[in-house]
């Protein structure tokens, strides 16, 4: 009998991201998740807010602390694991997704998190990021995007706008930036979201959805670096401009923004389909039924991609925020474990221990006896 291919194997039922991780016995506190290490980011760094949000979110996740693993690469944000009292590894530049892939594939009882930055994930580690997304390994990747290199003191990053004047580009950077959400969608990601360091409520909601998703959850977090790229996200943070700049994505609701109508709750601007993509329209100018309703579960990523393109490459005048895409797809690690379990179950039917089977394997084929 030939070996079944993975598609012939009984697919593991699609489950939540944390279903196979043992639950905590009782309520937990943020303090329990806080390590005794002194936090060493610059004053005012956006990383503090994200750390606080994660430390207070983890108790709500309700998992045993010892079954949570944070893995990071290199960069300011990659110090993150040291500040959480879980298992953790601060690894090498760009490689965290590959290390996390090994951890998540080896152990289904672990909740695996990757903390990375725009340089770490999109420059030196770009290959690992796209392959993690395509494999859909059950883990959550938090990409802290400050659009600059912080730890190496201020060179432009792969998300910096063209023309960025930095120490390494005194007359302006030349390379066109990545749009991390577009990239993730193009890399077959099954969960793609964007949130903001300073919006604790939204950030926490996205973390919860990301953790609940079984597969690789990709979360871009806009993170301000007050030292080397201050104000990169002012438009979406400033009280006067943010309602015009943030395009909130909520599954099942029309996508509108701008000045809210008290009665309908709709913003004065909206998204509508245009050709193969989407465009910004005056809400009043189109019939309500023609407004684009956000469908994060659409198997076809084209619309999500079109929405992702509304983000400016340069100064962020406007950006969609929320969950772009959330679809179910078998995870690599579940399938890999299923193949192993299947082979083990078949072997178990023939009886004997692993050592007996190894003896049989070593003595298989053409053997002969001497003496």
């Amino acid at each position: 009998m030939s070996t079944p291919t993975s598609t012939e194997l009984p697919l593991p039922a699609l489950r939540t991201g944390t279903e196979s991780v043992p639950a905590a016995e009782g309520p937990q506190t943020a303090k329990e998740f806080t390590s005794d290490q002194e936090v060493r980011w610059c004053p005012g760094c956006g990383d503090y807010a994200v750390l606080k949000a994660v430390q207070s979110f983890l108790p709500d996740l309700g998992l045993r602390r010892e079954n949570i693993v944070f893995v990071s690469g290199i960069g300011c944000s990659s110090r993150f694991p040291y500040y959480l009292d879980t298992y953790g590894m601060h690894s090498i530049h760009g490689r965290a997704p590959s290390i996390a892939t090994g951890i998540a594939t080896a152990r289904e009882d672990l909740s695996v998190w990757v903390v990375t930055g725009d340089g770490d994930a999109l420059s030196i580690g770009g290959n690992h990021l796209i392959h993690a997304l395509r494999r859909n390994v059950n883990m959550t990747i938090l990409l802290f995007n400050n659009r600059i290199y912080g730890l190496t003191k201020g060179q432009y990053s792969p998300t910096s706008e063209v023309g960025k004047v930095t120490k390494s580009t005194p007359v302006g950077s030349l390379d066109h930036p990545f749009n991390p959400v577009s990239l993730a969608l193009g890399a077959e990601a099954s969960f793609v979201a964007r949130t903001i360091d300073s919006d604790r409520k939204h950030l926490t909601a996205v973390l919860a959805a990301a953790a609940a998703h079984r597969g690789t959850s990709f979360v871009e977090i806009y993170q301000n670096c007050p030292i080397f790229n201050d104000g990169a996200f002012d438009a979406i943070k400033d009280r006067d401009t943010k309602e015009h700049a943030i395009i909130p994505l909520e599954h099942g609701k029309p996508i509108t923004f701008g000045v809210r109508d008290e009665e309908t709750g709709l913003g004065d601007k909206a998204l509508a389909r245009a050709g193969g993509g989407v465009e910004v329209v005056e809400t009043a100018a189109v019939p309500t039924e023609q407004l684009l309703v956000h469908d994060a579960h659409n198997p076809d990523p084209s619309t999500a991609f079109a929405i992702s393109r509304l983000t400016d490459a340069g100064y962020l005048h406007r950006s969609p925020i929320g969950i772009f895409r959330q679809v179910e797809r078998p995870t690599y690690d579940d399938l890999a474990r299923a193949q192993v379990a299947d082979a083990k179950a078949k072997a178990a039917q023939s009886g004997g221990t692993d050592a007996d089977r190894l003896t049989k394997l070593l003595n298989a084929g053409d053997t002969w006896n001497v003496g």
Partner: protein
Amino acid sequence: MSQTKQVKQLDRVIIRFAGDSGDGMQLTGDRFTQESAVFGNDLVTLPNFPAEIRAPQGTLPGVSSFQVHFADHDILTAGDRPDVLVAMNPAALKANVGDLPKGAAIIVDTHDFTKRNLDKAGYDTNPLDLLGDANDPLGDFQVHPVDLTGMTVEAVKEYGLSRKDAARAKNMFALGLLSWMYGRPTEPTTAFLENKFKKAPAILGANLTAFKAGWNFGETTETFVVRYEIKPAKLPEGTYRNITGNLALSYGLIAAGVRSGLPVFLGSYPITPASDILHELSKHKAFGVTTLQAEDEIAGIGAAIGASFAGSLGVTTTSGPGIALKSEAIGLAVMTELPLLVIDVQRGGPSTGLPTKTEQADLMQAMYGRNGEAPVPIVAPQSPGDCFSAAVEAARIAITYRTPVMLLSDGYLANGSEPWQVPSIDDLPVIDPDFATALNHASPKAAEGEPDEFWPYLRDQETLARPWAIPGTPGLEHRIGGLEKGEGHGNISYDPANHDLMVRTRQAKIEAIAKSLPPLEVDDPSGEAKVLVIGWGSTYGPIGAACRRVRRAGYHVAQTHLRHLNPFPADLGDVLKRYDKVLVPEMNLGQLSRLLRAEFLVDAIGYNHVRGLPLKAAELAEAVGQLVGEAEGTEVDLGEHGLNPPSDHEEAPSR
């Protein structure tokens, strides 16, 4: 009509099958090897093939060959010079004839000796037309021109195959002929073909028929009047099988998993000549083996490190170029002190080098190819079958000492084969992962009622290994990483004194492994040798064969071989001191010799070849002999035991 053939006894024969890379020479050689193994000869093989999957047909670069040396006694090498060459086309003849000793037999398929193919091989005139002439270029050899292809096509007519498909069975015709000539059992090949072509009855029929036709041709033709008999070898009692290095290494990894109780996790990126290990391990999921074909070399080791952190036996397999890419991650495993196996199946370098050829020039890379002081234990197998126990040993060190370990195989070991005495699983060492499960250190504030703590860098006094606490273990949550750790507590530390201590401690941990190693075995039969030959890795065979030659010629020489390159065995320094001269044969420009010089201030003399092929025993014997002469102040003449005919191939051990 069957003729009465003469039967001649031989103690050993070296046959080389050579043809176009599409001619199936590897398969032919492999089948002949299996037949010889089942017959009970000792044997060593040397496959040699181009890096191109299908190099241009009929050209010299497209020639693929397989050499098998089999004997009625224990042998150590695939042989320097073939006694018999089977050449399937002009290019195969041209590429290999230079390696033959005077008097060798050449069986040549005349079918492809066309103008076009002669041109491609660079022959101005057909050498077969000149046989027996005064200017016969093959005059030194016994040449048997046979139309192997023509006879094959004729024999398999009944299967209605295209001419091309019919001709393809010519390798089986050749195999049948050689099997007859050396009295090989045919059942293994028949069974093999029946299994391989069970879904293609016509192809199966053609191959079986060609195989039998080759045999019958030998029996009836007047071209061949002698059959040879090579009695089974008297090997130590036990069950044997023929095995290649890559297969033995794969089985060794599975055995390491079974003996440690750890699931094996292989993260790997395909690369010649290591890919077979990935292929093999991917078949053995029933042992709890997980294989991940990663997006690149770095991800392969990254995933393996992650799996080790999570409590698996992490393994990554590659060749030299892959090690270059993995260096930073190996450093991470050094810093995080996690068990990890890094397997380098060495090939010709630098850069892409000679992907399908062997070399052992990655020793310095394994030793020093990382930033910072990053010591890594190095283990090297000495023969194809030895790859099994070398893998188990590498795992023992990795798990016991919480360290990445380099296992240096090479292309010759990987693809070469030998009879292997199947070990008993119970005889393999038990490897205890000894996971940490409890807090191990009193809190500095214990007096104030603070509970005990877990210190991930609190070391075992004997091994200096740190505790391995895997995720899921309550209370032992901790963070590791590439930044320098404070000794004991393991938190980030930039303290100068601590860094100095940690650098020295990591080094001391690797050096402490020497205490667990057995004393070096030195082969010095007379006890009077003044010269010691020391090697590592796949040169074991040629060095052993060279020493046998020197001894047969009546001189004294000692031999020892290193399985552990880092740390060296504790008694190596004493062993070296016992000899006046030390010769270090290597397939590089002198890497072990440099390490020996640096470590022991010994005048280690190099013997170095980097031809992409194993060292030649006769040449090496001459070099050893010369040194023996210098050491003993005598003239040394190895006579027929060196490069001089007639006995220009491997010697039996002195009896």
